[in-house]
Structure formats: structure tokens, C-alpha cells
């Protein structure tokens, strides 16, 4: 299949948008944190009480998974040969432009700025970035200043209620700069997102990928995502897509 050269991962939000509640948008910009999913302490808590004792098991297992994830994330940091690469969370609007630049350079689908804002403003904590320290600032403390450093990877997600019951995470965009492929950066970003979502009591995580994008399919399937559906002519270029899903519960 296609070689590693194009790891443009997944694509349009076009169809997924139909599930958006237009109203959540109005609040979205100003009161992003009001949606009940984001009150993770509450939701996790109420979750544990509302279910039978059998599920306490699951919670433990979940904890274990989360810790496995943490473990994994730590490991790759150390193992990563390139010391200049570091991972961090989204902080401010200033990063938006570089994210857009990165993603639109890699993905096949065009997004408007509103799509970016919709995701990143509503779920800033689910947006993770990977940067490379710029050469002129070798000072280790300067990692604070992300804007000077080159952005080489990013993931944009959301997490909200699907059909009013399921807590569904959605990976909207994932992109890694061409020059930095095969360094497990994408896997790491996905793991970071999965971890955050699991901490928020997520039931399942979904995303779409082109049927032809073997690199992306491999990446996600190694993490346990399965092809749940085929979406007929999902992308604007007429290609079918798979809906990949990771069931957590």
C-alpha cells in the first residue's frame, strides 16, 4: 500500500458536524467549560455510584490502563533519541495559526478557521502539540516560549455526549510534519489524547480515516481502534472512509 511518505491522518468534520447542536456553539465560545462532559470530577464520580459493583472492577481496570498510558508516555520521552522534541498542551490563540498551517499542509480536507476554533476553543485541554526547540535558543528553560519553536505535530479532539448517553471522544485532526515521521510522534499524541479522554470518563473514541491511508489505519489499529463502519464517499475527493472506533467500555 502507500508508503510512509504520506501520513496525513484523518479528515473532514463535514459529516460529523451534523451532530453538533447549534446552540452549544453559542455558548461554546464563551462558556466552553459548561458542557457537562467537562466537569470530569463530577461525571466520573456520579458514574461510579450509578452503576453496579461489578463495574468497580472496570474502574480499577481503567485506572490501570490510564497508568499504563502514563507509563507509555513517559517511556517514549526518554527513549526518544531526539532530545529537542517535546510535547505540550495548547495554551493560547497565538498557537492557532501555526496549528492551522501545520494541519492544512498535511490533510487532504480543507477546513475553515471556524472548524479549528470550534474544536480548540471548546476543548482546549484535548489539543496537544509537539514542537522542536529552535536551534538558536539552546537554553533549556526557554521551552516556555513555544511560539519561537517549530511546531511539528498536533492533535485536535473533542469529547461530548453522543445521542445523549455515550461519552464519545472524537479525534478530529492529527498531523505530523513530513520530516519528523516514523518517530512515534503521532502515536504519542494520540495516547496523550486517549489518556485525557479516559480521565474524563469517555466511553468510546471515534475518528475517520480514508480507506487508502494505510499509515493512519496501522497507527490506530495498533492502539486497538477497529473499523466500525465504512462511510461511502465520505471525503470531498470521493474516497470512502472508515469510521474507526476504540471501545473503552
Amino acid at each position, binding site marked *: 500500500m502507500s508508503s510512509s511518505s504520506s501520513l496525513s491522518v484523518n479528515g473532514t468534520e463535514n*459529516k460529523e*458536524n*451534523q451532530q*453538533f447542536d447549534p*446552540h452549544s456553539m453559542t455558548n461554546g465560545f464563551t462558556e466552553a467549560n*459548561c458542557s457537562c462532559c467537562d466537569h470530569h470530577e463530577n461525571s466520573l464520580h*456520579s458514574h461510579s455510584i450509578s452503576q453496579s459493583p461489578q463495574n468497580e472492577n472496570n474502574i480499577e481496570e481503567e485506572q490501570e490502563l490510564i497508568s499504563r498510558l502514563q507509563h*507509555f508516555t513517559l517511556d517514549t520521552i526518554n527513549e526518544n533519541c531526539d532530545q529537542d522534541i517535546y510535547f505540550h498542551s495548547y495554551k493560547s490563540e497565538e498557537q492557532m495559526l501555526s496549528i492551522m498551517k501545520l494541519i492544512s499542509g498535511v490533510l487532504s480536507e480543507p477546513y475553515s478557521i471556524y472548524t479549528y476554533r470550534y474544536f480548540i476553543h471548546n476543548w482546549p485541554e484535548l489539543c496537544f502539540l509537539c514542537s522542536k526547540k529552535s536551534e538558536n535558543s539552546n537554553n533549556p528553560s526557554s521551552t516556555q516560549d513555544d511560539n519561537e519553536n517549530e511546531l511539528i505535530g498536533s492533535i485536535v479532539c473533542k469529547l461530548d455526549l453522543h445521542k445523549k448517553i455515550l461519552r464519545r471522544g472524537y479525534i478530529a485532526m492529527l498531523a505530523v510534519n513530513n520530516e519528523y515521521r516514523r518517530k512515534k510522534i503521532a502515536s504519542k499524541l494520540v495516547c496523550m489524547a486517549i489518556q485525557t479522554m479516559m480521565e474524563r470518563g469517555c466511553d468510546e473514541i471515534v475518528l475517520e480515516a480514508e480507506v487508502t491511508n494505510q499509515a493512519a489505519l496501522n497507527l490506530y489499529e495498533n492502539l486497538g481502534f477497529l*473499523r466500525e463502519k465504512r462511510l461511502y*464517499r465520505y471525503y470531498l475527493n470521493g474516497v470512502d472512509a472508515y469510521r474507526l472506533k476504540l471501545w473503552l467500555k
Partner: protein
Amino acid sequence: MSSGAMTAVESIPLLLTGLRTTFNSGKTKSLKWRKQQLERLLKLFDEQKHLFADAAKEDFHRPEQETLLYDCGLIRAECVYALNNIDDWVKDEKKSDSLVYAIMEKYVHSEPYGVSLIIGPWNYPFLLLFAPLVGSIAAGNCSVLKPSELAPKCAQLVFDVVPRYLDNDCIKTVLGGVDQTQALLKGDIDYIFYTGATTTGKIIMHAAAEKMIPVTLECGGKSPVYIADDANIEVTGKRIAWGKCINSGQTCVAPDYLLCSKATEQRLIPEIIKAWKEFYTENPLQSESYAHIVNDRHFKRVENLIDKSKVVYGGNSEEKHNYISPTIMTNVTADDKVMQEEIFGPLLPIINVRDENEAIRFINERSKPLALYVFTGNKKLAKKIIDETSSGSVCVNDVVLQIGPSALPFGGVGPSGLGSYHGKYSFDTFSHKRSVAFSPTFADGLVSMRNPPYTKATTKRMELIGKPYRNWFHIPRVFKTFWFWAFISLTSLDPKMDSGMSINNHFHQQPQQQNRNLTPTIAQLIDRKQLKIENFSNLELVYIFDQLLSSFHMWLDGHSLALTVFTCLYLHEPDMIKDNVLRTMTIAYLKLIDYIRERIILKAGIYEEEDFSGTLIYNFKFYQETVKEQQSINDIKKCEDDLAKYYRKLRHLSTTVDISQDMLYTQQLTIRMKFLRHLYQICLKFNCVNEIGEQTPLNGEEIAKLLKQTTECLQLIQPTVLIKDNDEQEENNLTTAINIQKLDTNSSSMIASEEESNLSTTILSISPSSIVDLKYTFDPYYNYRQLPPAFNRFIRCLIPSTIVYKTYNELCEHIKKLLEMTDKKTLQLSYEYFIEYSTYYKPTIFIRSLLLLSYLPSAQGIPLPGRKIFGQFIFSDYIKLEMKSFILPPILTLKHIQIDQTTFDIVENFFQRSAVLFSNLFYSLCNNRARTREKLSNLLEECSVLQDESEKIDNWLQKFLLDIFEQQTPNNSQVMMMMEKTSYFFNFMLHWTLCIMEYYIYLGFELDLYSKRELYDLYFYLAQIILFAHITIYTRADYLLTNTETFFQQLNNTSMTAGKKQQKSPVTNRFIRQLVDNNPQMTSDLLNMPSSTISSSDVGSISTPVNTDNQKKSKRKQQTTTNGTAPSTATNGGHNNNTNSSSSNRPSHYEKELNLLHGHFSMCTALHRCLKALEVDNRLIFKKKNDMSSDLTQSPYFLKDEVRYRHRFMPFSNLCAPRYMKYHDFKDIQQLCDGDHNIHDLYQDSVTHFQQAKVYFETYLNKITLKHSSTKTPLNRTFTIGFTSVKDVESYIKIAKTNVIVVRLLAAGHKRGETIDFDFNTNSHYPMLKL
């Protein structure tokens, strides 16, 4: 007795002033505050739930669980519901009205009342206080809580805990009794929400009336329970016992008294007592689950209601603990004390009524109750009682539960209450609905008509425009996304939404070249002489025609109208065109599009969000009324004639001048017009309507004739190709940019064929210079402003007409193939045909719609069971015939039996219902293949329901037939036995369920949905559950057909001869008569058995039938296991079967099907064995990594096998047969099956099975080829049985052959340690193993 602290009466006005100040500050109105408070409330009832439970227990010995479940749980549910929906609730509700008000902006705004007072009762001390509070907060009010003083500990707790969680400025608690309440009522409040006794309710309402404060009153009343004689007494007893005694009867919606017949009473009482004993033991006083009466006063009151002489159970009391035991009283009359007031205690009086009419009368003679309960198995009866009585709420076959769903309002009527709440209704209760209208000043000219002085004319006009019309136009909500994006674009007011989009890869690179902020109208373009409307050369017309046809093709392929055909400007205003041919052409296109859109695609209703063809029309005109279909066709014909005349003129001239080019163009144009006419006529033949508006069945002959003419036209057409004559023309960017990479994968085959076509067909080359005048004819951007901002703006480049004409050829082929459908006379054949069609033709939405409409005309119009196949045959008849030929059920086969009305109704009802299932099945198969799979999983739900039904019918029919046979004194007891034991209906349903399951799983393979790690589970489930069951079914059906057929024939004949003594005996079986009457042309088939020539001696020759036992599920499982653990027996069995059938030379009814199924079974078994062996052998990549759990960095796999299994087989989980195998069972069984063997055995077994599969498939193939060679029809490789086509079988054989070799190598230890890959390229169903 209330010892708790009291709020000082004097402080109350101050407290209210404080709340008023807060409210006026607007704090509570903010959505953020409301949500935050609801979150806090949720937290409160989560974190402190045990405190609440303890308090209620202290107050009146309330069981903790009841507080946890019914108070805390329900409050949390209300909070979550409100949080989930509040965004919707607070939105202003936009309104539309008649034309005269159209320019006003109108909406309803929900605003809080201000300070609301919530008075709670003691029986549910928290629920009935806080559930209203949720509404009050959600609506944005300040609130005062007044818990009941009768439960002092609870009240104190509320007082203590509320300020710690909720906003103390906005939500206050007042403790105390009558004085405090009165002070509150006199104070500055805006809304009263009261829950409690009716008498107090009246006082409250009175006080409110003084100040005109709106109130909601939730009171009680005697809620009756009517138990019909047909109710399920066991369940009824248990439920009443529960509802009566939760909270010791102190529940406002508790069942108060029972109404039933004496007989029912006798049966019911033991059940209730049994339940009580189960719930609260023999001595409820000791039970922790039993609440006591709240205080002495109430204890005395309830005790006083007990009439010892009428007590049949209980009646004990204990004053020290305020305890009264659950009590039943019988022979109660309306005059008894217990019937005078709401009991509010654990007493259950029973009043005898003869029937429901008396019960209704009894209920209606009393005050309207808060709740009414009906227990019955008869929905009609329940509806009747509901219709003829009134109450706050009703629950059928249960009690109390109706208050649970937040989507339902809860409240009383009459003396039982005023107003309602829960969910959205709570929000509405606490909100004032305020009308807002903005009248624009710019429209004063319109409005001034109303001003005096009045004249007759203005009055009349005002009357006219002010008149409300029926069925006033509503804005259709086509796409949710549309509104979402419309909202975004409006709020942001970005003049060019495109700015944020990176449009860089379409052919049209000069979007900004002209100033397009204002799109010119067609008229403007004509004025500017940019758009030509007359004096076209024929070449130009040919060119336009081809471009239009190409865009039309793209539209058919599922793209938006606006981006395809309507990029041609002429289509917007055909009336402006002066050229006759062009105008006729454009109008014909418009009408054709409209017909396809409206009468075919929308009618069939199988379009999805990915199909843009039908749904959005952007106000384009389609000449629906002005030009009739026939007229349009005549117009084209006339154009053709004119052109032909012109051609003759040219030919005449050609002797003198060289005008061969012109002649050619004229000729080509004529043919094109003819082609368009035929295409239009073909479409009109589908889904056409007769004079009385009914769908007419497909007229295959006429269509075939038209198709022939169309293909003839297509052969004559020379497609146009733009040939650039020199480079300077290049900037002349006309619409035919051919960019092969941009074409999607589907058309890759077309590209290949294009090269061939270049060689074979003659091309009409056009130089760009000759069509310079048509520069503006096609403008891909013309409709951009009409599209929703996020709409797919990319236009796939027009497909060159060389290819387009090829695709129309294909289209004709598809339609021709579609006509074969009329030959499919049974459901099974149609099912297979649909699968074959969708697999091998990959039809577009247009063709799929045609298919569905031809099979089931008017799919969306008529209610499902009324649909007729091909518009001729009643669907349920078809199912009967299908069932009759499948398994020969006696009820549909015996001609001379009397069927009574009940049996007839039951059976008929079943067929009506299965008609829904089957028509949905065909509907599903017409969706695009990806969607089909989803729809099939939904169908399985319906299957499970029908399976239940069929089981019941079988039981009924077995009894029914037994009676008949006893009378008829049959002569063959062996066959009789077999018939009695067979579940005909169930087997039939199971057969179809299995068909759907098989296709569901194999479609998953075809769509490439499964990952490697799932293969084992899938093949195991397929083989051991699905295919195994299916083989059993077919074998049984086969056996039945063989053995009962002669017997039935005899029976039919004997009764015939017996009848002959009188006269020719009529067919008495109503089903057969009905079938014959409805389908006169099928009579001969119906009356005779499925043709087979077996002598009766053959019956004995079959030694042991393969299991005719009746779906004993445990047994089935056992079979599966034994079959699995001892594969050799299974194989032997298979072989025996095989040899048996071939040796006895008897044509088995289901020989082909069985061969295929055995083949699949062996294939799947071989594969799962092989997979197991590979796993043990460490030859599977994913397993290897997963096992090394320490090395997480390699591949952390987050999905648990059990979770994966559960989700993947979810659609099967509700079926009663084949029963869903739970993961643990699955693990056990596969351990038994594959786990105990060593690698070598497993490999060996796998080889045997592959070989066997090969033999089965080869046998099948030989039979088929033999049959075809004898009938001299060529073997159609797509010919399908089940889901398997001949082509599939050929590749299966190849796969099996290869796999045998590979597995042998593996078993020998070849390249040990290396992993194995699976290659699904040969056939998507089964992999070829690759070393």
C-alpha cells in the same frame, strides 16, 4: 411534636427582601449561574446522599434504599436532564405566522418569575422539595425552600446542607410550620409551588388569589387500580405489593384501592401476600426495608381506617413504632371509611366490579385522581379505560413508574392538583412565556394601510393579507448542518467564507478575476452580450449538449445540483433562450431532472447524507406545471424533425458546396436529441402513475424496446473532444479540464476504457475557437452564493464526453439487467438477485432507487404491509408462498381443513408483520453497500420479535392441527409425529434470520472492516453458530419436504374423493383460497405441491433424520460443543450426508444450498483451527506484541477482547435463536473446541477441513455447470445462491487449494517463527495464507 429549630417569623420579610435584591441584580438570569447551581445540586445529592438517608430513617424509619433510590437518584436524574437540555430550553422560540406579520421578527422569550416559594411535604422529604428546585433554578429564579416540619430531621438537614452547596444569596431555606408558611405567603414572592394535601392546597391557592400569584399545586387523591381478568396476575401482584408499600403507602401516586372481579381477587390476593412476605419477611416490623407511619396523628388516622371485619391479611399495628402492617381488605364498598379519604398508609382495599364499564363508572363518580393504573394484557381495553376516564397520569401494567421519565409531565388534574413539572415542564412551570415582536420601521408603507380613514378597498386588502392560511408554508429543515453553518456565517458576517478555506486544487484558478461580489443575473448577462441566446451553430449546440450530459451524469452520481447541471446558466432561465432547439433541450433536461429527483429518488427514499442529488433544490425552477411531460417529449420530437428537414436541405445543397461539416453536426445533434428523448421516456416508464393515482407495475417490454433504441443512438453518437489548435488559446480556460488524477477510484476503470474508446469510437473534435461565444455558458461559481458555507465546494472536473457516453451505455446495461427482476418469483430469488445486483453492478443511487421502486412501487407512500411486489402481488401472500415452498407447513398445504377465525387472525397477523420485516429487508439491500450493513443490523432487532411470535404461533397451530388430525384419523402415524414436532414458522423465521446474519458478517468482509485479531472470533462464530444452525435448518426442511409431501397429497386426495360423493368439494382452507383468489395466474402452482417425484418407498430408506428436535437451546449448545470437540464426527457426518444423497440418487430439494453451506462451514472451521494453531505457534504479529505486556512501547493495545467481542456481535445479542453466545461461554466453548489440541492436530484438522470445503464447492460447481450445459444457457458467473456467487465459489476453491499446501508446510515447521500474512485479494470472504 416538631422539635427542630424554627426560623423566626420576623426575619422572613427581611430574607425575602434579600432575595429580591439578588434577583434584581440579574445574577440568577445568567445561564452560567444556572448550570453551575445545577451542577452543585447534582454534587450535593451525590456526595451527601447518606446523610439524607440517615435523616429520613430517623424521622419515620424510612429504609435507606428508598431514600437513595427514589429521592437522591431521581433528583440527580432531573439535574442531569436539565443540564443536558437547558441550552435548548433557554433559547428564544422563533415563530412564524401569516403573511401580514411576516416582516416582524417574532419570538417567545422565557423569563424567570422572580422569587419562587417551594413548599415540600414530608413523605418524600427531598425529592418533592428539590425536583421543583431544579426547575426553579433552570428557569433562573431565586427560591425559598420550605421543607415540611413533620419530618424534622430531614428539614434540619436541608437547612444545614443547602447553604454549603448552593448559592446562599439566591436560595434560602425556611424552617417551621403554619406561622412561617403564612408569613411567606404574605411576603414578596412571585410563584408558589406546593406539594401536599388537597385541603392545604386550597388554603394556599386562596392566599395566592389575594395577590394573584401563580401557583402549582401537587396534591394527592385516591388513585385507583383496575385489574382486568386477563392481566398477568403474578406480575400484577408483585407490582401492586411493591407500589403499595414503598414508603409504607405514603406516596402520592401509590395505588390506593383495587377494582377487579371476584375471581381475579381470589387469584390476586395470594400473589400479593407472597410478594409482601418476600419483601418484608413474615414480620415487617423487624424489616429494615419497611417504613413506618410518619407521626402519631397519622398513625391514629390510618389505624382508624382499618375495618377488622373485612381484613383478610395483616391488620396489625404497633403504636410505639407507629407501625402498621401491610393489610388487605375485601368486600369493601364505596361507603366504607377507608374509601372516604386518601389512605396514605399500607392498607389495600379491594372493591369488586363486574367489568371495566363498572370500573369506569366507579372511577368517574369520584374526584379525578392523581394516577390511574390498569393491569391488562389487552391494549384496546387499556386504551378504552384511558379514553373514558381522567386522571393526572396513567400507567398500564405497572404502578408509580410513570413519574420516572423526565420527558413526561407529572401533575394532577382537578382536586389532585394544578399544573405539572419534571424535565422541560419544570422549566416551563417556573418561566413566564413572554411574547416579543419587532416591527421594522422601514416597512411603514405596508403597515400604513391600517390607518384611518378607513375605506372599503383597504379593509378588503387588509382582510386578504391578514387571513391565516391552512397548511402555511414551513421552512423545511433539510440539513441540520445547514442551520449550524448559517448561524456561524450570520454571526460572524464574514463576507467571504472561503477566506478561511484553502481552495487550491480545483481547475478554475481565477475566482477573483471578475468582481463577483455581485453575481450578475441571466438577464444582465444577456444584456451585456456575454450570454448568447440565439443564432447558435449546430456545433455549439452539440457541444453544450455534451457538457450538459456530462454534468447530468455527475448529478446522477450523487453530486449537488448547484455544482453540476445548474452550472449551465441556460438552465436558470430557459424562457429567455430564443433558439428553439436549445430551449427545448434545456427544458427537457430540467423536467428529466425533476422527474428523477421527485418521482424516483425522493420517492424511493434511500438517499443518505452522502447523496446530494435529491434533497436541495435552491429554488430552481422545474416547469412542473407549465410544461407537461408529453408536451416536452413532443417538442423534442419536433426539433428532431426540423433538424432532419434541415439536414435534407443541406444534403440537397451539398452537391454544389462543401458543407459536410455542417451536415455532420446537424446529424449528430439530431441523434443527441433523440437520445435525450429516449432517456426521458425510459425514466417516465418507472414509477408511472395511472389515472387514479396508483402506481402501475413495471412495463418491461416497453422499457426493453426503448433501451434498444437508446443503445442504437449511443452507437451513432460521436463524442466531442476539445482539441486545442494552438497554445495561445490556452488561457481560454474552458470547462473541460481533464485531470485524470482527480477522478475518484470508482472511475479508474473508466479511464482504462477511455484509452480503448479512443481507438474504437470516432470522435468529434472541436477547436476552442469555434465555441468562443460560449464562454459564459458554464460557470462553476454561479451558484456559490446559494450554497451553505460549509458545503462541498469542490467540483470534480467534468468527465470528458468520450467517457460519459460509455457510462450511459453502462446505465442502459444496468437497466436491462434490472428488468430481469420481474422473473424472480419468490422472495428467496429476489433476495439473491438484489445481493447479486448490488455486488456486481455497484449501482448508483439513481439505479438503486429504480430497483426499489420497480420491486416495491411507491415505497414511501403506502403503509408497509399494503405494498405490493411489482405493484401486483400482495406482500404477505408472497411470504406465504415462500414459506409454503420452503418447509411445507400443513396450515398452508392442506386444502380441506376448516380454519376458525382466531387461528386465521393469528396467522394472518404474523404474515402482515413479517411483511414489514421483508419489505425493510429489500429496502436495506437498496442502500449503498456500506449503509446496507448498518440497516441489516437493525433488521435483526425486528427478527428477534418475529421469532418470538413465530414460536407462539407454532404452539397454537400444533394444538389446532392435532384436533384436526384426530378427527380425520390419519393413516401414517410416523409422519404425523414428525409434523407435530416441527416448528414450521419458527424454522422459517430462523432461516431468514440466519440469511441476514450471514450477509451481515460477509458484508463486513467485503467492506474490509475486520482487523486481523478479530478473524478467529468471526470464523468461529460463523461456523459453530450461524452456519451450523443454518445447515440444520436446511436439512430439516429438506427432510420435511421429502417425507411429508406425499402424505399431504394423500390427505388432500382422500378428502377430495370423500367430497366427491356430494359434489366437487371446494377448498376449505381459507389461506389457500385467499392465495388463489388474490393471484389467479398462479393457481396451478398453488394447488399443487412443489414438484418432485418420489415414490413412497423412498420415505423409509432414509435411516436417521438429522435431528428434528425442537430448538431445545441447551441441546443445541451441546451439539455445538460436541461438534467442536470431536471434529472427526462432524466430518464423518458431513461425508455421510454427502454420500447418502449422491448414492440414493434422490434429488434433494436443497442440495445446492446445503453444498454451499457445508463448504462455508468447512472453510470457516478450517480457518479458525488454523488461526488457533498460528496463535499457539506465535506466527501472528499482533499476538506476539500483545503478549509481551512488559514492552508497552511496541504496541500498547487498549482494547479488551471482551469489550471488542461484545460490541462486534451486538446486533446478534437480542436474538432468541441462534442464541447469542456470551463472551464467557464463547471462551469456554472455543477452549473445548480448539484449545485442547496440540499444534499439529490443529494444523492437520485445518487441512482436512480445507480439503473438504474444496470438495463441497467443486461438487456445487459441477452441478451448476452440468445444469447449465444441459439447458444450454451460458453460466452466469454472478449467479448467486444465498450470498455466494459462482465467481465466489471459483475463488474459494483456489483459496482452499493454496491453503492446504501452506498449512501443510506450516505443520511441518517450515520457517518456524516467521509470521503469517492474510491475503484477502482473491476473495474478500476468506484469506489466502501467505508465508
